[in-house]
């Protein structure tokens, strides 16, 4: 490139597009990005040719911002290609960072996903026995579709990632801050963050920014959000409503608890934590107000399906990564 503009690519793997919308949600900032950078690829908003990317030199792109994890062979292929073409690779959003909601599929066997989608389903064509196949022959024509992997991977399980921006989706201001930090680093105005850093989030957990009043905690039963009318001022955990805020990095602006909805952990674990779910488990169970095994079981009955709360966005990032049922 003749001019000094930054070479930027924005791409999605097994994502929903919400991350791209969060970039659009920086509104006027988009125009600044347009001034500062050549957006070489951005499927949701710009016209980029796959061939163009293939034709790039290695490292020709300054930054690739990729949302979404890896669900199939295509996701992996393009992630690897963009990694090769990029100086800095940013895993953007919870899916890229931790696997995200799609990684809840890691708790179920792949064949059951097909059964449910194509066979056991109230609106499927009566008597249907057909299931899509990667390779088929239809009246003499060979057709194929990509292989659906056994599980979902977070990006750094497939490629080398330089920085992470957590959030589902990342809060637009955080997105802005992260992009500005990278631009500053690339234009030599600031030191780059240490490799592997989580940018666009804070060091402390959500409780640090949550306005709700907190006191000592003891839980004698859990409530599901619809079971009670909550006190908007008091800590949700203390009201018995499971909230992942205490085990989740802050940076989202506390939008869920502020709206009366408990945190589900999309910003991921605290800096020193290996497994967000295990930590939430440890904290939440420790404050159960009983020393009697039977009573403890009763109390836990009021907290169904804890696993999907423990790693709502991070099954792929959890230590066990997926179900190991044989």
């Amino acid at each position, binding site marked *: 490139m003749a001019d000094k503009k930054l070479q930027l690519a924005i791409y999605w793997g097994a994502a929903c597009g919400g991350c791209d919308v969060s970039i659009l949600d920086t509104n006027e900032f988009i125009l600044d990005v347009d001034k500062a950078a050549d957006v070489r690829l951005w499927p949701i908003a710009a016209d980029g040719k796959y061939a163009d990317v293939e034709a790039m030199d290695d490292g020709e792109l300054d930054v690739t911002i990729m949302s979404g994890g*890896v669900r199939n*062979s295509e996701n*992996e292929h393009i992630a690897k290609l963009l990694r090769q073409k990029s100086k800095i690779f940013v895993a953007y959003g919870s899916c890229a960072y931790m696997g995200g909601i799609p990684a809840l599929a890691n*708790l179920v066997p792949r064949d059951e996903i097909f059964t449910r989608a194509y066979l056991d389903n109230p609106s499927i064509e009566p008597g249907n026995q057909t299931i899509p196949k990667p390779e088929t022959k239809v009246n003499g024509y060979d057709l194929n579709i990509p292989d659906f*992997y*056994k*599980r979902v*991977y977070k990006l750094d*399980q*497939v490629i080398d990632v330089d920085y992470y921006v957590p959030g589902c989706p990342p809060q637009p201001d955080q997105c802005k801050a992260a992009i500005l930090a990278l631009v500053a680093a690339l234009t030599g105005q600031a030191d780059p963050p240490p490799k592997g850093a989580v940018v666009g989030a804070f060091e402390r957990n959500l409780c640090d920014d949550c306005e709700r009043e907190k006191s000592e905690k003891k839980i004698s039963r859990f409530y599901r959000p619809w079971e009670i009318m909550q006190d908007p001022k008091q800590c949700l955990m203390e009201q018995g409503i499971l909230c992942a805020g205490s085990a989740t990095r802050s940076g989202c602006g506390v939008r869920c608890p502020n709206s009366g909805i408990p945190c589900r952990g999309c910003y991921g674990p605290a800096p020193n*934590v*290996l*497994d967000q*779910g*295990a*930590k939430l*488990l*440890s904290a*939440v*169970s*420790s404050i*159960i107000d*009983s*020393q009697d*095994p039977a009573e*403890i*079981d009763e109390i*836990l009955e009021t*907290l169904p399906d*804890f*696993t999907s709360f*423990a790693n709502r966005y991070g099954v792929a990032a*959890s*230590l*066990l*990564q*997926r*179900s*190991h*049922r*044989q």
Partner: protein
Amino acid sequence: MTFEPKIVGFLCNWCSYTGADLAGTSRIHYAPNVSVIRVMCSARIDPTFVLKALADGADGVLICGCHPGDCHYTEGNYKMMRRFPLLKKLLADYGIENDRVRLEWVSASEGQRFADVVNDMTERVRALGPSPVKMDLATDMAER
């Protein structure tokens, strides 16, 4: 050759670890499959330890603490008592068989009991065969 399970034990310093020492001092013989990691109290045992042990290739994890009401820290073992059932639910959802992770109360004077627990657990885990976790994670990557 029969499969020899590798089991990681997390024992509290005051009751269970002392009990395990007593089993040795009393020359009570038991299966050599459990390697013990000493913590001050079962309350120090973070569920993360159990998950990490499984992810790193342990075929089983044994947790031992003082009997309820007899904790050196008065109520540390109750914290473990509360975490354990929730941890078991989580492990079940991740497809980890029930017998692979176990919590037992072993006092400083129960050398024999410690030996029995180790023997019984070793047999159960041997019956289950090797833990799939480490292998799964390796083959997933290969299959991509």
